[in-house]
C-alpha cells in the first residue's frame, strides 16, 4: 500500500462516478484536440498540394475557385484562358517551367486532365511531414507519357491550319454537308496514353495497358468519347494529394477528341474559347521574377495569376474562425466537466470524513489528505484527457479518411507536443478543481470525526 494506490483504490471504489466524470472530460478534450488537429492537418495537407506549383494562371474570377478547381479538382471551371497566353507565358523570363491544363472530361467520377509531360518532371512535392520538396513525380508502375510543350504546340498549329482550310472549303462549297470532317486526322495512339493516380488505379482497377473511354463532363454519367480509347501507360505512386485522384492525358489529345472542337456560336478568345486552356501551372524564379510575373498577369483582362499557397492560407483563415468558436465551446465543455469532477468528489467528502480522520490517526498530515484528494481529481482529469486524445485520434482518422476520399489530400495527424501540453493543462486544471473538496478533507477535525458515530 502506498499513497498512489490509495488514490487509485478510491477511484475504483466509485466506478460509476469515475467513469462518468472521465468520459465527460474526455468529450471536451476530444473536441478540442480534434478540431485543432483537423484544421492543422488539413491545412498542411492542402498546403502540400498547393506547393505543386508556385503560381497558377487561369480565367479571371474567384482566385480561390481557380485554385480549388485546378489543383484540387473541386467545383466548376470558371472559364478558359486563350491558348496564346500559354505561349506568351512560356517565353517569359523567370518562368522555369509551365504545365498547361485542360479540364472537363472524366472517367467514372475521376477527372481527366490534359497536361504536358512537364507535370511528371517538374512539379514539386514535399514528402509528407518534410519541408524540402522533391522535383518530379515517381511512378509505381510504368512511366509517364511523352508529350512535350513542343508536341502540344505542334498539334495546336496543325489544328489551326486544318480549321482554316475547312473554313475556306466552307466558303467555296456553301451549303454542302461537312459532317465527319473532324474525324479526318488520325488518332495517333501515342496521344491517347494515360497516367493514372494511385487512388484511381486502386478504385477503378485500371492497370497498366488497360483501355478506357473518357467521358465528357466532370460529373455523373455523360457521353463517352467512344472514338478515343486511352491506354494506361503509368500509375503514380500515392502522393497524398489530389494527384492520386486524377487521370492525366496528353493535353494535345484533348483538342483532337470529339466533342471538344469548336462549335457554332462559340466565341473565340473569350472565357468560353474552346481552343483555350483551363489553367497553367507555373514554376517561377522566386523573388523579383515571380512578383513581376504575378503582377503582369493580373494586369491583363483575360487572365489572372494566383499563388496557390496564399489561397489555401486564406481559405484556412476563414475556416479558422469557425474553428476558434468550436475550440471555445470545447473549452467550456472541459470546464463544465471539471466542475462535474469537483462536485462528484465533493459529494463524497461527508461520507469520507471518518476515513480521513482514521488516516490522520495513522499519522497522515493534513497536507497528505489534501494531496490524496487533489490527486484523485488530477487523475480523473488525466484519464479523461488521455481518453479524449484517443477519441480525437480516431475522429481525426475518420474525418481525414473522408477528406482524402473527397479531395485526395492526405490529412495525417500524429500526437505531438501540443497534445502533451493539453494533457498537462487538463490534469493541472483538474487538480485545481480538486482543491475545493480537498480543502474539506484538509479541515477535517480528527478528534471530533473519530468520536462521531457513522
Amino acid at each position, binding site marked *: 500500500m502506498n499513497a498512489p494506490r*490509495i488514490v487509485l483504490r478510491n477511484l475504483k471504489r466509485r466506478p460509476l462516478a469515475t467513469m462518468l466524470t472521465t468520459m465527460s472530460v474526455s468529450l471536451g478534450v476530444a473536441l478540442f484536440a480534434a478540431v485543432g488537429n483537423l484544421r492543422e492537418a488539413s491545412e498542411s495537407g492542402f498546403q502540400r498540394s498547393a506547393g505543386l506549383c508556385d503560381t497558377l494562371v487561369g480565367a479571371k474570377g474567384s482566385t480561390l475557385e481557380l485554385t480549388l478547381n485546378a489543383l484540387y479538382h473541386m467545383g466548376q471551371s470558371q472559364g478558359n484562358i486563350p491558348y496564346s497566353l500559354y505561349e506568351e507565358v512560356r517565353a517569359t523570363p523567370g518562368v522555369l517551367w509551365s504545365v498547361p491544363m485542360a479540364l472537363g472530361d472524366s472517367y467514372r467520377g475521376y477527372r481527366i486532365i490534359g497536361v504536358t509531360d512537364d507535370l511528371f518532371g517538374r512539379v514539386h512535392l514535399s514528402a509528407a511531414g518534410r519541408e524540402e520538396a522533391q522535383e518530379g513525380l515517381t511512378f509505381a508502375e510504368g512511366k509517364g507519357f511523352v508529350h512535350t510543350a513542343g508536341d502540344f504546340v505542334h498539334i495546336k498549329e496543325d489544328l489551326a491550319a486544318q480549321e482554316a482550310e475547312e473554313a475556306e472549303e466552307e466558303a467555296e462549297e456553301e451549303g454542302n454537308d461537312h459532317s465527319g470532317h473532324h474525324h479526318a486526322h488520325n488518332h495517333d495512339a501515342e496521344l491517347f496514353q494515360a497516367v493514372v493516380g494511385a487512388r484511381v488505379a486502386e478504385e477503378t482497377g485500371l492497370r497498366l495497358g488497360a483501355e478506357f473511354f473518357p467521358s465528357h463532363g466532370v460529373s455523373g454519367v455523360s457521353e463517352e468519347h467512344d472514338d478515343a480509347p486511352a491506354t494506361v501507360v503509368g500509375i503514380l505512386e500515392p502522393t497524398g494529394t489530389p494527384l492520386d485522384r486524377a487521370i492525366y492525358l496528353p493535353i494535345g489529345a484533348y483538342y483532337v477528341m470529339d466533342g471538344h472542337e469548336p462549335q457554332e456560336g462559340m466565341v473565340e478568345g473569350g472565357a468560353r474559347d474552346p481552343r483555350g486552356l483551363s489553367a497553367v501551372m507555373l514554376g517561377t524564379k522566386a523573388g523579383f521574377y515571380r512578383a513581376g510575373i504575378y503582377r503582369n498577369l493580373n494586369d491583363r483582362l483575360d487572365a489572372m495569376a494566383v499563388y496557390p499557397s496564399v489561397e489555401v492560407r486564406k481559405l484556412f483563415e476563414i475556416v479558422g474562425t469557425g474553428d476558434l468558436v468550436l475550440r471555445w465551446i470545447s473549452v467550456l465543455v472541459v470546464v463544465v466537466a471539471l466542475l462535474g469532477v469537483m462536485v462528484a468528489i465533493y459529494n463524497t467528502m461527508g461520507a469520507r470524513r*471518518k476515513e480521513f*480522520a482514521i488516516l490522520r490517526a*495513522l499519522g497522515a*498530515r493534513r497536507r497528505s489528505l489534501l494531496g490524496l484528494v487533489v490527486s484523485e481529481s488530477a487523475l480523473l482529469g488525466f484519464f479523461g484527457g488521455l481518453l479524449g486524445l484517443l477519441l480525437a485520434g480516431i475522429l481525426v482518422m475518420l474525418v481525414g479518411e473522408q477528406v482524402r476520399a473527397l479531395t485526395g489530400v492526405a490529412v495525417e495527424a500524429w500526437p505531438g507536443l501540443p497534445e502533451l501540453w493539453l494533457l498537462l493543462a487538463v490534469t493541472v486544471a483538474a487538480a485545481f478543481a480538486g482543491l475545493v473538496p480537498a480543502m474539506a478533507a484538509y479541515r477535517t477535525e480528527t478528534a471530533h470525526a473519530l468520536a462521531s458515530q457513522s
Partner: protein
Amino acid sequence: MIHLQNLRLSYPGPDGQEAPVLALRDWRAARGEQLALVGGSGSGKTTLLNLISGLLKPNQGVVEVAGTDLATLGEARRDRFRAEHIGYVFQSFHLLDGFSARENVELGAVFAQGKPEPGRAAELLEAVGLGHRMNYPPSKLSVGQQARVSLARALMNKPEVLLADEPTGSLDPENAAQVLALLRDTAEAHNITLICATHDREVADAFPRCDRVEDLA
C-alpha cells in the same frame, strides 16, 4: 516514557466560555508498562489518549512522549511523530472499507518515513490469527476479527506506545477477553507501553495499574 505535567485542555463551550475538559498535575507511565484508564463518561479518557498521540494539543503543560515534548511541536511534526511512535486501536476499530484486511494493515505504514519490511503486514496478521483472512474486506470479517486487524495495523510501525480506546466496547465477553489478552501479550512481547481506556471493570481489573482520570487533577 510518558510524562504529562501541569496539563490543561479546554474547549470553547456553547456559551463562548472556555470549558475545561481535562487537567492533570503530574502523570507518568514507564516503558513497557500496561495500565488502564477509567473514569465516567465525559471525564476525558479519549481526550487524554488524543493528547498523548498528538492529535490534540494542550492549552498548557508538557506532553513528553519518548523524550519529545509534543506540546511544543507543530501539527505536521506531531503527525509524523504519531506515525512513527504510536499505535492506535479504536472502539469501532475504524477499518477502511474498500481495502482488504492486509491493505488495512499496510495503511498503518503509509504515512511513516521509510518503507516497511515486505511481508510485515502478512506476518502481523498471522500473529493475530488471521492468516487465512488476509484478502477479506472488513465488511466480511467478524467484529472480533476486525479488532485483530485493527491491532495488527497499530503494530505496523513498531510503536513504542499503544493506545486503545474502549477496545472491547463492541465485543461479547468471550471475544473481549481474547482481544484483551492478545493486546497485553503483544505489548509485553515487544516491550510496548499500553494504555487502555475503558468503562469495563473486568477489563480494568486485568491490568496491574488502573488510573481514574478524575483523580489525576
